[in-house]
């Protein structure tokens, strides 16, 4: 059953391409899948028909379907079904006229400096002024985190979620989903100064590749003080059990 082997091999690669979408919720674009599958089918076909004998065996079941009179019934069924399937495939592909998609960098490179509160911040050298209390004065640190939590639960949870998982009350209505802070692949990969910039300048402050015109992340420089922003950053790390990425 070389034909079966051929079909199964192609199916295996197809599932491999589909897997990220099915299990991780990060689907590979269908146009990309179509392209890969095209090459995969051709390659598998080539490999399997490299000898005449192999080619013969591969196509034998198809040939017998057409030529063997005892398979008349199956043949008639197949001959009717295949054109219908092809017609449907064309119908299906014609229907989908998708709106343009814009590719976007989730964590674009930050600028070297940002201006706010009448000051200039050098993002490469600033750090969270409240961070040192974590070791030096745990009680004070706890109080800072608590103040940060209040900033968060007055300003941010609508979007970023009660659980900091990016699934707030209004998240479903936003074009770009708010980013989560939970998990080890989120803010643990970022420096605190990066968050400081993002919170200060919000969506409008993103560089072009970050999608500044579609990000609903507000700019907070006119709403929150410098201290409040550093404290809410403390809270984001503390609540999620993450540690900021350090300098080295």
């Amino acid at each position: 059953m070389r034909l079966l082997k051929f079909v199964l091999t192609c199916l295996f690669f197809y599932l491999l391409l589909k897997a990220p979408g099915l299990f991780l919720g990060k689907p590979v674009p269908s146009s990309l899948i179509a392209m890969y599958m095209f090459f995969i089918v051709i390659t598998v076909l080539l490999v399997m028909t490299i000898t005449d004998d192999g080619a013969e065996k591969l196509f034998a079941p198809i040939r017998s379907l057409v030529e063997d009179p005892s398979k008349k019934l199956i043949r008639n069924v197949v001959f009717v079904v295949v054109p219908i399937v092809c017609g449907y495939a064309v119908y299906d592909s014609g229907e989908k006229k998708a709106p343009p998609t814009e590719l976007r960098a989730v964590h674009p490179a930050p600028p070297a400096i940002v201006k706010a509160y009448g000051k200039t911040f050098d993002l490469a050298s600033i750090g969270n002024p409240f961070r040192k209390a974590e070791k030096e004065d745990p009680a004070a640190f706890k109080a800072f985190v608590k103040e940060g939590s209040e900033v968060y639960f007055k300003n941010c949870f609508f979007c970023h979620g009660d659980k900091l998982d990016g699934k707030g009350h209004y998240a479903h209505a936003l074009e770009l989903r708010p980013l989560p802070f939970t998990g080890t692949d989120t803010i643990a990969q970022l420096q605190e100064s990066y968050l400081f910039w993002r919170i200060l300048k919000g969506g409008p402050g993103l560089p072009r590749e970050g999608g500044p015109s579609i990000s609903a992340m507000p700019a907070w420089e006119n709403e929150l003080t410098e201290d409040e922003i550093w404290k809410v950053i403390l809270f984001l790390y503390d609540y999620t059990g993450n540690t900021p990425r350090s300098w080295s």
Partner: protein
Amino acid sequence: MGMRLLTLFALLFCFSNDVFAQTEIDKGKAIYSRLCAFCHGIEGAGDGPAAAYLNPPPRDFTLGLYKWKSTKFDEYAPSDDDLARMISGMRSHDSIPGWDGMNATSMPGWSDLLGKEEVSHVAAYLKSLAGYDNAPKSAIDLSGKVKADSASVERGKTLFKDRCAECHGVSGRGDATKKLKDDWGARTWPRDLTEGWTFRAGSAPEDIYARITIGIPGTQMPSFADPASKKMMTDAQRWDVANYAVSLNESEKKPSANPVLKAMKLDGKLPDGPADAKWDKAAISGFYLFPQIFVSSKSYTPSVVSVSVKALYNDGEAAFLIEWDDPTNSMPWDQKALEIADGDLFPDSVAVQFPSGQLKPGDRPYFGMGGPKPVTIWQWKGPESIEEGQRARIIDAKGVKNINQRLADGLLTANGIYDNGRWRVVIKGPLKGSDKDPVFEEGGFTPVAFALWDGSNGDTGGRHLMTGWQWMTFEKQGEGPSYLWPVAAGVIVFCGEMLWLFSARKKD
């Protein structure tokens, strides 16, 4: 001796039981302080830092009163199962996407973070806040369910007019005639029964039957199983009303995952108003709204969850039919509107926003009234006085601080009708105006965004509801699904098969 031993054991037993319960409550309290106190308050009084920014407000647990319980109307307390469900998630079959908590509130489901046992510890703590520890077990009896056939729905309809319409409106759109408050002093609006996906505790017949039978404790919605009430209904009648209420759900209004607004092309004149049969041709698209929480006067207590839109165009114009449910028409001379408004009354309004001029691919302006790249806004405003009437205006904006109002004379018309809790507004503008105006191309995609003001909820100026950029497309005339190519493909493949068959026959 035996007697003394027995007492000792009994004492020990009581004591250990108490200690056991105490540690459960302590464990629950620890979880509560970590996860729930931000909203429900450290003492459970519903006064956490987030409380002032929430509509509906988080529950105050000190009264021990719960809205979405399933025990009989004369039982004050919810059952343990109820508490577990409220905390771990309501799991309604029709919900807001990605939300397993109470729909259209900020109370999420916690089952992703809390296991069964932890949930029961938190529940024990909540019970201790109200000073009771024995929760009743009995849920109401659902066994008398009446099949939702047309006869039942018809009977339910008659009962609905008498029992429910005074609050939910004759069409069930929540256009109350009463200003209602719950026992905690918060404003409550009777639910819009045409939007099942906004129900806190589910919109299946069983869920609605439960609400009618139990009432909603702490609110004015009474139990209709209470023999002391003049509005009491039999078990079968309550199922009939539930079946009718389910039939009110307009699921086509529920926004889909990635809605695209499709404008249909018409020959001849576009409709001026909402009551025109031509609108039946256009497909409806729903869009979720979020409150304006970006700049200056922010809006934290939105009153509308989504908006439904249709679009038509011809050679010269594009027209939008925008529909949403609103408990009042916000007209200042309307006695009902004045009575139930929350604070000052402003006119209702709706606006459609487009990028101005020709758009380069991937180059949309900022969604919140533009920025360096400008946007054009077509706005309809409800009347402020009888004399003045409804208004239409065009706004050119380059950000919230750079707004220019343009005379809409002749360019833009807008016309709305308010009926039984629903606004239906038509906004009609030029397909190609000056270089400031949006450019719509047949067959192309255009970004579009919506904004909405509910004047009886205090919305005015920057306080409003909105969407981000959505996509709309101007379908080519007669474009619908084309059958030519699929049929051609089928025929070609079939001919191929026949050729093969014949050549195989010849070989033999």
